[in-house]
């Protein structure tokens, strides 16, 4: 790999770690998280809360409650 290719690859790799942080980290202002399709804002706060709670529950080793009336084995 040429020196130039090498630097290019290094930049790409640094970019991966940067984007990971810029787009998914940092302080978030404002309440509603929206996903836009064709310029229509659709609010998905509920979905995000669901995913977060499932992931957190997993981390804590908590059982995720089953649907109503079903025994949990």
């Amino acid at each position, binding site marked *: 790999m040429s020196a130039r290719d090498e630097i290019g690859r290094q930049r790409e*790799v640094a970019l991966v*770690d940067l984007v990971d942080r810029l787009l998914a980290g*940092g*302080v978030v*202002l404002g309440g509603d998280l929206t996903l836009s399709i064709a310029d229509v804002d659709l609010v998905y706060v509920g979905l995000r809360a669901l995913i977060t709670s499932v992931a957190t529950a997993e981390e804590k080793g908590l059982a995720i409650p089953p649907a109503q009336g079903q025994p949990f084995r």
Partner: protein
Amino acid sequence: MIWVYAICDLPDLPLPRRRGLAQAPLAGIPEGGLVAVVTEHTNPPGEPAVDALWAHERVVERLMADRAVLPLRFGTKLPDAAAMRAVLQARAGEFTAMLARVRGRVEVSVRAIGSGSPNGAPEPEPAAPASGREYLLAKLALDQRGERQAAALHEPLAALAVASRRGMPQAAGEVLRASYLLERADLARFRDAVARLQRQLPETAVLCTGPWPAYSFVGEGAIA
């Protein structure tokens, strides 16, 4: 419309001359002991393109050189200074606590790719599992092997850090994706530890990048 880069302390400290997105000059919006660093735009700077990301990042890193910085998520826009002040007022306690957490500290990224992973690396597949049980046990074995590789790396590194966060492996073969919050003075020691661990763990490829602003330690509910 204002584009927001960071929330900092030391509101009386002059802002750097470095420009932000679209070469706009930096402006500070102070409120209490905090200041939001922003640029003003009539048209939004647009979709995140690689150049915009690095331009944004350079502003945050330049600020980090001489003050405590809470980096904002990329793409944070507010209508005007009044809206910014309202946020700073409403969340002053939270921001002040977060600033204390990151003052004098930097974030470092570590990714490791191992042979075998929780994701199911593209290894040559053994014979198709004959039963559901075999399937699960094979997955479990892979998972545990990946986790052992990850722990061998993560545990000693976490011990050198103020705090650490593990993320979900994203790439094929990835066993560890983590962020470490370090005292700035400990950066060299951490880097040397990574190099040493890499030598000790030849079957795991380790990548360490940084220093970054503390993106992973200031998000929602990050105060701990």
